[in-house]
């Protein structure tokens, strides 16, 4: 690692920097690499709304639970979502009670499940950001090409630029961003340019290794006060992204408002299936309500950087990875999970 970078970040004595890492995988990587201990007290890292299951309102989980009650249905999902609380229980409990819940590695796994069990209607829990949307579009393409009729999607797809704009406009005090690396692989780094210029704040697209993140932080701190987008992950991120994947997404999905836990409805911050593919939608509209199982849960404030995870009264007490009270403690990309398991106090 470049000594100049290490020394600069440790000894920085300029204006306070509040740098939000939007991506949950970056939050996990920051903890894993001990990065907070390598920074000046004037550089603050703030975990943002970049854990897909954490920002999904409880009404979405409740809808999955409702669908799971039908013995003809089977919910297929990534493992992240299994223990996320709905308003009364989660999919893990529903599975224990006899519902069909299948954990998959890839959404494409549902194709073989659907072919093997033609009498079962599979509902894929279609949660995620721009990184995961291409595979959902590929799933749609395959369902149509292979005329598979027993798979539907329950969508809660969200997009980054609009929520970053929301954070900037909300008076959060964030004055720089570590831009999400794998989202940027798909979208390209250009999506941050309008926001960087609007608020005159720097964005650094970063990989997930400690060295990559420190290099990005060095660039971001150096560029404080400038509306620039810097790509520190050029091995996989380009300015325009994966244009073939973006075209496939546009074939099946269109922009829509989305509801984010802690932020409410943000215009244009989601993707839904186009009207012509409505028969593949398992009922994604209007899943806006967010009811906490534990009223003292502060997941919403954690997601927008208003409080640090350890400032929540439940953190590490009744709320642990074994007994999560909110989604931020469930996912390995959740801010609370990451702070607790790495004993972060910054």
């Amino acid at each position: 690692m470049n000594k100049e970078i290490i020394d600069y970040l440790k000894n920085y004595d300029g204006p306070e920097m509040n740098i939000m890492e939007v991506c949950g995988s970056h939050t996990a990587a920051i903890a894993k690499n001990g990065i907070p201990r390598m920074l000046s007290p004037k550089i603050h890292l703030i975990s943002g709304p970049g854990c897909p299951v954490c920002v999904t309102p409880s009404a979405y989980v409740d809808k999955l639970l409702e669908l799971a009650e039908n013995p003809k249905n089977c919910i297929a999902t990534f493992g992240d979502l299994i223990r996320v609380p709905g308003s009364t229980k989660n999919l893990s409990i529903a599975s224990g009670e006899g519902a069909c819940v299948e954990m998959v590695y890839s959404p494409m796994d549902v194709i073989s499940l659907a072919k093997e069990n033609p009498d079962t209607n599979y509902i894929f829990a279609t949660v995620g950001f721009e990184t995961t949307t291409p595979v959902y579009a590929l799933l749609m393409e395959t369902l149509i090409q292979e005329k598979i009729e027993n798979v539907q999607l329950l969508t809660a797809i969200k997009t980054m630029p609009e929520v970053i704009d929301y954070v900037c406009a909300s008076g959060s005090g964030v004055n720089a961003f570590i831009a999400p690396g794998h989202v940027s692989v798909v979208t390209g780094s250009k999506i941050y340019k309008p926001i960087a210029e609007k608020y005159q704040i720097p964005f650094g697209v970063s990989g997930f290794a400690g060295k990559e993140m420190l290099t990005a932080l060095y660039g971001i701190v150096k560029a404080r006060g400038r509306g620039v987008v810097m790509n520190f992950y050029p091995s996989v991120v380009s300015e325009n992204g994966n244009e073939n994947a973006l075209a496939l997404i546009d074939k099946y999905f269109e922009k829509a408002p989305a509801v984010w836990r802690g932020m409410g409805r943000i215009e244009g911050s989601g993707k839904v299936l186009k009207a012509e593919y409505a028969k593949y939608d398992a009922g994604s509209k209007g899943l806006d309500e967010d009811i906490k199982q534990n009223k003292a849960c502060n997941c919403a404030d954690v997601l927008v950087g208003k409080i640090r995870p350890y400032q929540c009264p439940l953190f590490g007490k009744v709320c642990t990875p074994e007994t999560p009270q909110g989604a931020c403690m469930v996912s390995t990309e959740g801010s609370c999970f990451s702070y607790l398991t790495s004993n972060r106090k910054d």
Partner: protein
Amino acid sequence: MCVALTGFVTEIKGDLATVDFNGNIVTARGASLIKVVPGDRVLVHAGMILQKVSDGDAKELEELMKDVGAF
């Protein structure tokens, strides 16, 4: 959920690529979207190839760091 890993393509059959992640062999889709060939290093997320990993990044980073140094 946005975790993605890099591996080497060992075989292509239509849209399906066999990818070697340090000995773990996984099948990934999207080989035709990215147009990969055996030997390519690729980034895979949720069973789909998102991008080829470029070897030419060192020069780009060097130029970027020069720009950063000028700030």
